[in-house]
C-alpha cells in the first residue's frame, strides 16, 4: 500500500493544486454571495491566455515566458469574470445562468481564436514551470522525496496563496466585510459597507484564481491548451461544497479528489489495485461526493445569501 502511495503521490499533488486554487476562487465568490458556476470557463480562459502568451514570448524570453503566461492567465480570468460580475451584481441576473453562459463563451471563443492563431484548436507550450528541490527539506528521509524533491514551483505558489487567502478572509477588514456580504448583505449595507463593490472584488479575485488554476494545468502536467479542462472547474465547485466553504475543508476535499482521481488513473499500472474494477475507482470520487452532500446537508455551512441578488431597498 505504501508503495502505491509513493508512486502516485507526485501525480496526485499535480492534480490537486489546480483544483485547489480554483476552488479557493469559488470560495471568495460564494462567501461574498455570488455563485460562480463559471469557474470551468474561467479556467479555460486562463489556460488559453497562458498558452498564447507563453508561446508568443518564448522565442525572446525562453524559460521565463511561462511566468508571464501565468500572470496573463490571472489577468484574463479576472477580466473575463467581469462579465459574470456585471450580470449577477448590476443586473441581478440568475447567477447560475450567467455562469453557464461564461462556460459556453470561454469554451467556444478560445478555440475559435486558437484556430485563427495556429490552424488547429490546440496550442502547445515548449517548456512548463521548473521543478525545484527545496533546500534542506528535500533531504529529510521519506518526506523529502515525497514532497520536496522535483516539485513544481506552482505547487508552492498555490500553497502560499492558500495561506494568504485564509489570512485575508479571516483576519482582515476586507475579509470580514466579504463574509458579511455573503451572510447578510442588508446588515452589511446598513453598516456602511458597499456590498456591490465588495462582491465585484470577490468575483474578480475568483476569476484571477480560476485563471491561474487553468494555467497551472497547462504549465505542469498537460503542456497543451485544447479548449477544455475536463470538468475540473465543476469538480472545484464540488470540492468547495464538500469542504463546507472553508479554506481548510477545501484543502482536504481537493487532496481527496486528487488522490481518488490519481488512484483510478494509476490502477492499471499497480498490481495491487488491478483487482478492483477500474470503473468503480473512476466513479468513486463522485459517489463519495454525493454521499458527503447527503451527510452534510443537515448542518450545511453555505453562505446564507449565496446566489441571492442584493437589492438595497428590499428588507
Amino acid at each position, binding site marked *: 500500500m505504501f508503495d502505491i502511495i509513493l508512486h502516485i503521490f507526485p501525480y496526485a499533488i499535480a492534480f490537486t493544486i489546480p483544483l485547489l486554487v480554483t476552488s479557493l476562487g469559488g470560495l471568495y465568490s460564494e462567501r461574498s454571495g455570488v455563485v460562480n458556476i463559471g469557474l470551468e470557463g474561467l479556467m479555460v480562459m486562463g489556460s488559453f491566455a497562458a498558452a498564447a502568451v507563453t508561446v508568443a514570448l518564448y522565442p525572446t524570453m525562453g524559460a521565463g515566458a511561462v511566468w508571464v503566461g501565468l500572470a496573463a492567465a490571472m489577468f484574463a480570468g479576472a477580466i473575463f469574470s467581469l462579465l459574470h460580475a456585471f450580470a449577477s451584481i448590476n443586473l441581478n441576473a440568475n447567477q447560475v445562468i*450567467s455562469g453557464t453562459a461564461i462556460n459556453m*463563451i470561454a469554451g467556444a471563443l478560445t*478555440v475559435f481564436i486558437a484556430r485563427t492563431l495556429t490552424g488547429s484548436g490546440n496550442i502547445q507550450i515548449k517548456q512548463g514551470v521548473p521543478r525545484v528541490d527545496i533546500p534542506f527539506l528535500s533531504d529529510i528521509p521519506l518526506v523529502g522525496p515525497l514532497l520536496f524533491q522535483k516539485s513544481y514551483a506552482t505547487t508552492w505558489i498555490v500553497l502560499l496563496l492558500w495561506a494568504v487567502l485564509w489570512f485575508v478572509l479571516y483576519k482582515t477588514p476586507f475579509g470580514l466585510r466579504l463574509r458579511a456580504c455573503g451572510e447578510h448583505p442588508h446588515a452589511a449595507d446598513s453598516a456602511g459597507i458597499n456590498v456591490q463593490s465588495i462582491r465585484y472584488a470577490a468575483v474578480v479575485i475568483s476569476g484571477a484564481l480560476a485563471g491561474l488554476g487553468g494555467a497551472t494545468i497547462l504549465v505542469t502536467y498537460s503542456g497543451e491548451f485544447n479548449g477544455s479542462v475536463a470538468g475540473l472547474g465543476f469538480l472545484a465547485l464540488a470540492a468547495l461544497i464538500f469542504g463546507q466553504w472553508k479554506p481548510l475543508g477545501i484543502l482536504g476535499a481537493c487532496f481527496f479528489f486528487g488522490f481518488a482521481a490519481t488512484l483510478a488513473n494509476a490502477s492499471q499500472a499497480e498490481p495491487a489495485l488491478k483487482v478492483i474494477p477500474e470503473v468503480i475507482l473512476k466513479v468513486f470520487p463522485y459517489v463519495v461526493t*454525493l454521499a458527503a452532500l447527503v451527510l452534510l446537508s443537515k448542518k450545511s455551512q453555505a453562505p446564507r445569501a449565496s446566489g441571492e441578488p442584493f437589492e438595497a431597498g428590499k428588507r
Partner: protein
Amino acid sequence: MKLAVRKELLVGLTAVILGLVAGAIFMAVTANNPFAGYFYLFAGGLMNVERIGNTLAMATPLILTGLSVAFAFRTGLFNIGAAGQALIGGLVATILALTLALPQVLLLPVILVGSALGGALWAWLPGLLKARFNVHEVVSTIMMNWIAYWLTYYIVPSFFKGAYETESRIIPDAGSLKLPWLTQLFSGSFINLGLLVALAAVVVIAIILNRTVLGYRLKAVGFNRFAAEYAGIRVNRHVVISMTIAGALAGLAGATLYVGYATSMQIGVLPSIGIDGIAVALLASNSPLGVLGSALFFGILQSGKGFMNAMTKIPPEIGDTIIATIIYFAATSVLIEQWFDRWGKKRRGGNTRV
C-alpha cells in the same frame, strides 16, 4: 398575458440579433468577411432538402434536452445534468437495440420507453436528494453526469465493442430510428423518427404545463415553494416528479442521438446537447413552443457551420461562440427589457405628457 409573451419573444429575438452581430464582429476581427460567413452558415443549414433534413436531425435532440431543462426550470430546478441523462438514455437504447431480436414495430417503442426510463432514473436520484436532503441539484446532477460518463466508458467496450475500442457495434436497422422512407424523403439525410417523438413531446409538455393540475402545481412550486406548501401542495413530491419527467425527456434525447442520428455509440464524450439544451431553454424563456423555435435555430447554426468552414476560412467554433453570446445576452435580458421599457415610455410620453 398576451403582452407578456410578446415581450419575451421580443427580448429573445433581440438577444439573437445581438449574438449574430457579435458573431459578425468576431468574424471581422479575425479578418474574415461576415456577410460571406453568414451566407454560407445559413446556406449550409438550409440550401437543399438533404441539408434541411440534417438541420432537423441536429435540432431533434436539442428540442428534447431543451424541453427537459425548461420543464425543470418551471419548477425552479436547474437541470444541468441533461448530458448525463441523455448518455444513460442513449446507453439503454444502444443496449436494447443490440441485444433484443424483435421486429422493428415492437423494438422501437421498447427502445424509446427504455431510454426514457433510464434518463428518468438518472434525474430521479438528484430530485430525491433535493427533496429529502436539500442537496443542490446543480452539484448532484454534475456528479451524476460523470458517473454516467464513466459507466458508459466501461460498459460499451466491455460488452458491445465495435470496430474500434471507443465505439459500440453498429446499430442494426431494426433498432435504428432512421426509417428508409424518411431518409429518402430528405434525399439521404440524418433525419429520423426522433423528430416526431420530439414534436409529440413539445405538445405533451405544453399540455401538462398549461392545461393540467399537475402542471399548475409544478409551476406553483417554481414560483414560490413556501406559498405552494401553504396552499397544500406537497412540494417535495413535485420536485421529484419534475426532475423525473425532465430526465425522461433528456433520456429520449439520448435515444434520438445515439440510435437515430448516429450509427453507433461513441464513448469518452459527454454529449454537448446537455449544455446546449440549457441554451435552448433559456432563449425560449422556458416555453415549450419557444423551445421548438430556438432548437431549430440552433440546429441551423450547428449543421451549417461545417459548410461555412469548408467555403471560408472561418473556424466552425463560430457557431458555438454565437450561441454562447446569445445566451449571455439572454441571461442579461433585464438590460434589454429596460431598453424596451424606456423606449415604450418615451413613445407613450409623447402622446399623453404624463
